[in-house]
């Protein structure tokens, strides 16, 4: 399918990395915002808004607050974005064959996605702002709570396909019935886990504006903030792709990619607007008491049925 003749490195800049990811990240952010707005009976932003925000932030002065480790302060957003971009290499973006693929790339992808959250937590802990520190603690607490169930939920399809390689799972999913049907619990946990990962409401207590302003990102401005936001947007696209690949019958072509990820995004936006924010203790409780157990039960069923 992918028989372009450009140099692979240049190709990488355009697709699946670089430009394509940036554009799709911004696009998905807009769709998300627009959908939430429509669910709330508002108008919502115009499609150019995320780009405008990005350009504005990039053009702004970046202020480094007192008392931070400067190199760390500047490098963290870059690392976060880079991690998110790298993660895209192993995922069937837009339904194409991933740029790189090897045995066990699922684990690598998941950990690359977590690097963003880790960077965020570090960034918050790096400053002396009280809001940022509380935000950082909450970010990391949340990371530890959703990570295990999310991983377990993605393990289900991998076990079914008997491979740790995303392309294999993709291929397997295309051949079989949608795993959202065969493994409904896993699908639910994965979807909600994605919301936790992206700190979307109701799991947005790490950046609850009414309590701790912007959480870990309170002290960030200008470029650093823009990069973090961009990283999150890209994570949104990758996360959606991953869940769609695993649970919605794989991604064979761009049309399928669009339909499936956008469908997921609609559900995600609806979930975002349906609930009140959970407190951090409630989030942790929910994940460990409900999420992890459910995912484990799903795995157990899988093992028993094999």
């Amino acid at each position, binding site marked *: 399918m992918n028989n372009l003749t450009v140099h692979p490195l240049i190709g990488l800049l355009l697709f699946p990395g670089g430009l394509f990811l940036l554009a799709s990240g911004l696009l998905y952010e807009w769709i998300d915002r627009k959908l939430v*707005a*429509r*669910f*709330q*009976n*508002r*108008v*919502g932003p115009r499609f150019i808004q995320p780009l405008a925000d990005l350009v504005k932030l990039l053009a702004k002065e970046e202020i480094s607050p007192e008392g931070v480790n400067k190199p760390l302060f500047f490098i963290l957003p870059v690392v976060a974005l880079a991690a998110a971009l790298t993660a895209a290499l192993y995922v069937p973006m837009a339904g194409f064959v991933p740029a790189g693929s090897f045995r066990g790339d699922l684990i690598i992808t998941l950990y690359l996605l977590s690097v963003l959250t880790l960077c965020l937590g570090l960034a918050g802990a790096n400053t002396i702002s009280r809001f940022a520190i509380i935000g950082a603690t909450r970010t990391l607490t949340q990371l530890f709570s959703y990570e295990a169930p999310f991983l377990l939920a993605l393990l289900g399809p991998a076990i079914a396909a008997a491979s740790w390689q995303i392309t294999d799972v993709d291929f397997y999913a295309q051949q079989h019935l949608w795993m959202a049907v065969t493994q409904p619990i896993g699908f639910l946990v994965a979807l909600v886990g994605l919301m936790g990962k992206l700190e979307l409401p109701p799991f947005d207590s790490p950046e609850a504006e009414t309590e701790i302003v912007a959480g870990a990102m309170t002290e960030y401005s200008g470029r650093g903030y823009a990069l973090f936001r961009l990283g999150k947007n890209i994570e949104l696209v990758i996360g959606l792709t991953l869940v769609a690949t695993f649970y919605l019958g794989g991604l064979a072509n761009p049309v399928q990619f669009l339909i499936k990820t956008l469908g997921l995004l609609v559900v995600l936006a*609806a979930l975002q*607007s*349906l*609930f009140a924010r959970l407190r951090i203790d409630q989030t942790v409780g929910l994940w460990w008491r409900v999420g992890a157990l459910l995912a484990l039960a799903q795995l157990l069923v899988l093992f028993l049925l094999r």
Partner: protein
Amino acid sequence: MKIRLGTMFGDIIRSLFRRPATQLYPYERRPTPERLRGNLVWDPSKCTGCQLCIKDCPSDAIELIVLDKVAKKFVLRYHQDRCTYCAQCVVNCRFKCLNMDDQTWELASVNKEPFTVYYGKDEDVAFLLEKMARDNAGESGCPE
């Protein structure tokens, strides 16, 4: 009472197929209500110069400048930027010469000058402005 998840589900689904409640204000204007208290307008023909309106104005937004008491030559200087649009002056006026317009209510400007409005017969206002200009010129020329 039963505890449920997602009690607003019906709302959000319905609103997807509904027009947004947001008004795109500068492009979309609703008609103003009849009683809207906008700009103050003054009809000089009925005024007797009793100054009752000025007495109770909570924000010193109106001044009545008497040019000729006997000939009933008055000019009303109205400071839109000070006005609180409470309509007390309209209530106080026994001759119904004050009124609040329900159409002009967009009062934004980058400087203060347009907010001082002179009401009165054209010749009176012209006379006053000329006099003020003369006084100003005299003042600045005088002291040094």
